[in-house]
């Protein structure tokens, strides 16, 4: 008697657990899938029930987004900025993390605390000061060169993206370098390899797993970022999220929804594909830089 009561309580618990899991999963899948379906709907379909399936595959939304809303150009800008920022970040952060974690020198502790302090600086606070700084430098340069050089500049945006990602990346990479045994450096040294060769051909390849995680995280960060891009690119060379913001504002007032949802698909599809491919690494990697409980 007692046993069967316990059984049914366990059964109820099981049902409750599955209901909760499915509810949250549905609340995530449905809106995201809905955007995908909406991106291939014709404009008149938006006046009916939002739950109706698309009547056909209306790819004209994407054509319109690419041609009239310049999403193609924004896409190119985003690809360029993200790629450059990742490259700069790795070139700068890898040597710094290596030296910081495996060499003792004067100022090491101080630099470590600088990097940790950097973790607390939020991009949202400093977007406007960075804008003013670039504006200031531009006014100086303008007398020499005659046009804006630093604002609306994709390379500058990439450089600033990389800079803002440095604290977290150095923190993550140097905590990984610390765990490597010193035998490899000694062996490389016996073989006559100098500091640079040891670093590039022995230590960096060993850090590959961490480097992959760094690339994944920062790709998502750079690709999705919009407040710096919005602030520092007021006139041209906008990136995808900023382009999407413009598109959302324009399409809503013109009541032309299709291209807006097409734009959303263009922004999120690369991140979704990447995520599905590497989701295990990403959710595991999160704990590498995080705290151990």
């Amino acid at each position, binding site marked *: 008697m007692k046993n069967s009561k316990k059984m049914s309580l366990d059964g109820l618990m099981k049902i409750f657990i599955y209901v909760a899991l499915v509810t949250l999963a549905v609340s995530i899948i449905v809106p995201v899938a809905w955007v995908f379906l909406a991106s291939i709907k014709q404009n008149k379909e938006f006046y009916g029930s939002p739950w109706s399936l698309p009547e056909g595959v209306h790819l004209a939304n994407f054509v319109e987004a690419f041609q009239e809303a310049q999403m193609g150009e924004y896409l190119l800008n985003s690809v360029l900025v993200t790629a450059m920022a990742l490259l700069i970040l790795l070139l700068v952060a890898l040597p710094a993390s290596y030296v910081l974690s495996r060499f003792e020198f004067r100022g090491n502790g101080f630099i470590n605390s600088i990097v940790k302090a950097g973790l607390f600086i939020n991009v949202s606070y400093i977007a406007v000061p960075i804008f*003013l700084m670039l504006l200031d430098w531009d006014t100086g340069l303008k007398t020499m060169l005659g046009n804006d050089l630093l604002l609306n500049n994709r390379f500058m945006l990439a450089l600033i993206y990389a800079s803002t990602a440095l604290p977290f990346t150095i923190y993550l990479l140097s905590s990984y370098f610390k765990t490597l045994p010193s035998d490899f450096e000694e062996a490389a040294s016996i073989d006559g390899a100098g500091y640079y060769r040891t670093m590039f051909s022995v230590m960096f390849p060993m850090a590959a797993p961490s480097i992959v995680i760094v690339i994944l995280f920062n790709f998502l960060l750079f690709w999705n970022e919009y407040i710096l891009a919005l602030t520092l690119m007021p006139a041209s060379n906008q990136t995808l999220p900023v382009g999407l913001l413009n598109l959302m504002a324009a399409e809503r007032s013109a009541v032309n929804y299709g291209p807006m949802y097409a734009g959303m698909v263009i922004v999120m599809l690369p991140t979704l594909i990447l995520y599905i491919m590497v989701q295990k690494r990403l959710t595991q990697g999160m704990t590498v830089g995080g705290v151990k409980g």
Partner: protein
Amino acid sequence: MSKYDGAHFNRFVLERGGKMSKSKSRKIFIGVCMMPALILLFVFMFMPTFEVFRMSLYSWGGFSNTQQFVGFDNFKLLWNDMTFIRSFQNSIFLIVVVAMVTFTFAVFFAAILTKEKVKGGNFFRIIFYIPNILSIVVIAGIFSAVYDPSGGLLNSILDMFNLENLQQMWLGDQKIVIYSLAAALVWQAIGYYMVMYMSSMAAIPPSFYEAASLEGASKMKQFTSITLPLVWNNIRTTLTFFIISTINLSFLLVKAMTGGGPDGSTEVFLSYMYAQAYGNSTFGYGMAIGVIVFLFSFLLAAIVSRITKRDVLEY
């Protein structure tokens, strides 16, 4: 794990080469590796942060380029600025509500997915993390579609279940819009914190639970006396994350979704700062808001961390 002794390697190298030149080349190597990072950090992180504090003491009305030192005048003005007071209230409301709700859901789902033998647990984990990889602009777009008063997903679901009286202008009603924002922020955050808690819960040895269940402890009892105390340190850290990231994400979402409207009812800390500094070009005043927010978030994080301090349990 072997602790690498940097000095050992360096001594080792030193002995092999000419002493002077090796030590010099070592210094150059360190410099070459550190300098780019230090320069970038200084120019694009620390200088702008310093500027936030410096500019808050100046009256600077936009592109006129005349900065006038006014001391704490900007801060005095803030206390009479009703929009600022409102953004303060909204931010605190969002921090508290989003942290509490997200925390509850994240711990609940993390406990289920690590401790219960759930079919398709991996699938759920993958799905729950998806909102975290979406751009906040996309999330703003998704929730604009969900909250749309006429053709929106939420109102049409209520319609389906004949609950028309619950239908709302989710983003148009000044009393409701802040809850709509909170819901979007929670939706966005659950997966991230869940994965964090999962990793620390998975590290708890299963033998603890076996022993407890032999003693007849219920699932709930096991959760409160084993799981929670052992992941407490992780939870404390995430409380700080909640404060910092809610301040930041609420700004990014508000900027993309409501623009602070209707009529300032969703204005939050940083959205008002951005509106003043970038939109209105009153840089000094905007930066004063930034300073207040910065200090407030630090203070709040310190207080929270202080009152949640427990002895760390080793296992």
